């Protein structure tokens, strides 16, 4: 179906993005991370290549999406052993690819899979790897990566002294854009002596009962922090979300408290949101969280503390007890 190219014949020196495919579906972050890479590619005069590891083309469901993406080339590695993600085997495929095509950058969405796979490759090739990068730029011809750090209000800029430059990019930190020109598709033929073995044997896979949340694309986000004081109060956010057709987000401490699953964490190691309206209840606004929501169109903060950073950065700061305001708001809207 696609032009077949042997690995060693592919073009060298590209910017490579990992296209995460699970059960035939492309993770939307794989498209998002192309946006900053395209920009780097233009500045460095490098092609952007999206690499997908799949079992076969017929079971791949997002081909149409790939045709619209802004990558210059799509490289598909197809093999039945790639049907399910396995850290060691996936890493070895990409290690071979790095060795053969000498990319200048290798980037992953900071998903569970991306955060498992990228460090395995970095360890195999002794490469530097930055985590949860939310901004990329070129300074003096070098790729400079930005990420918030240390849980305080400090942002760090990093470079990597090894090549390819490697990073995982925060989910939702970049918006997907689509192009006019269809990328070129290649099916990559791995060397005949490549060993398709993994020490991991998948016995069973049970898909998650609930749909993954749509935080990163939600129009309205209601987020809760420690100021809500209890898991019970936090659960009321879901009631409010139903009325407002919103998604529920959370801060890191409340995820660690077990009030809500970690996939609802907004911030550095969680999701970046950019809704029309963001309402933060009982959230003081540590940088860890605010980098994940600062680009919201309209920010409302409900907090007892007038000096809380989130109140200061909000378009509307409401000074009051978050659980009380939440209760009243639900009552008022259900009227």
């Amino acid at each position, binding site marked *: 179906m696609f032009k077949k190219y042997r690995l060693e014949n592919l073009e060298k020196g590209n910017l490579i993005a990992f296209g995460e495919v699970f059960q035939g579906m492309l993770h939307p972050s794989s498209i998002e991370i192309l946006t900053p890479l395209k920009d780097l590619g233009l500045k460095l005069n490098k092609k952007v290549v999206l690499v997908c590891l799949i079992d076969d083309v017929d079971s791949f469901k997002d081909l149409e999406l790939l045709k619209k993406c802004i990558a210059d080339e799509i490289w598909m590695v197809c093999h039945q052993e790639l049907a399910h993600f396995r850290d060691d085997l996936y890493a070895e495929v990409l290690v071979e690819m790095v060795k053969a095509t000498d990319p200048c950058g290798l980037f992953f969405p900071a998903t569970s899979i991306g955060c498992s796979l990228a460090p395995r490759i*970095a360890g195999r090739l002794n490469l530097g790897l930055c985590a949860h990068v939310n901004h990329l730029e070129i300074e003096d011809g070098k790729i400079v990566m930005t990420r918030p750090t240390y849980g305080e209000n400090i942002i760090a800029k990093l470079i990597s002294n090894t090549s390819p430059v490697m990073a995982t990019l925060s989910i939702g930190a970049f918006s997907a854009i689509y192009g006019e020109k269809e990328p070129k598709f290649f099916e990559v033929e791995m060397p005949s002596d490549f060993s398709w073995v993994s020490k991991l044997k998948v016995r069973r896979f049970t898909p998650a009962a609930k749909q993954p949340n749509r935080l990163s694309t939600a129009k309205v986000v209601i987020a809760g922090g420690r100021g809500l004081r209890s898991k019970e109060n936090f659960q009321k956010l879901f009631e409010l979300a139903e009325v407002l057709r919103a998604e529920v987000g959370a801060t*890191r401490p409340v995820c660690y408290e077990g009030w809500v699953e970690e996939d609802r964490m907004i911030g550095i190691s969680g999701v970046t949101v950019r809704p029309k309206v963001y309402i933060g209840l009982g959230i003081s606004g540590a940088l860890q969280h605010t980098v994940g929501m600062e680009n919201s169109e309209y920010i409302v903060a409900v907090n007892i503390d007038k000096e809380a950073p989130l109140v200061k950065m909000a378009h509307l700061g409401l000074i009051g007890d978050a659980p009380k305001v939440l209760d009243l708001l639900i009552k008022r809207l259900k009227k």
Partner: protein
Amino acid sequence: MEKIILCIKGVPKPGTVKVDPKTHTLKRESLELILNPPDRQAIEMTARLKETYGFKVYVITMGPPNVIPLLKEVYGIVADEMVLLSDRAFAGSDTLATSYVLAQAIKRLSPYSLVLMGLKSIDGETSQVPPETAALLELPSLTHVKAIYKEENSWVVIRQTEYGEEELEVNPPFVASILPEAFDYLRPPSLKRLLEAKVKEPMVLAANDLDLIPERLGLNGSPTQVVDVFEKKIEIKGQVIEGDPSFLVEKLVSVLEQKGIINP
């Protein structure tokens, strides 16, 4: 007896973080350290495996000597031996340089069956060290693990991600990072073992004690380098309103109407 290597990390108590303005790294010496919260599940997992299968447990950490109380805390819960990797030469290590030292130290403790760690640390939040260490040890790695058990001929690992739950077969030795949601309980230390820990000191290994290439250590041996740090300034955007909750709710409702989120 088969061994579990349990890796833990001392992290700065939230709110006490200081950054060295010169090297842009964390000033660890002056910090009050706590046990990295996501390590709790790795400790509990270790305790359960030890109870069921009778492992010998080595707890290992890298850091300045002020992490010793944390090793002793874990000794009180589950460990049989404590190992501290401590050397000025390790200061400022990024995840690769850290994983390199860990991997070399773990090799010293061979043979072992399992290497367990928390999913990530709350200071760096990278979750990179477990897979990087596994790659350096040339072992399989699994992240987001919530259960580990032995069947007749193989070990079974359950991993949970946003996609769902996977059941995998894998033969030891392997490296696993444990899901923070795996358990909501960490057993307390036993008083007897805590008393033992008072007089027991960890084995301390410095750079010279391990087979290490000096160029791969610490700040200078780290491929990722911080070139700049800056404080994020908060822009004051809008208005702040005080009042009783029902007044605040009315204000909020009118904003939601204006924005077209709800119908007036």
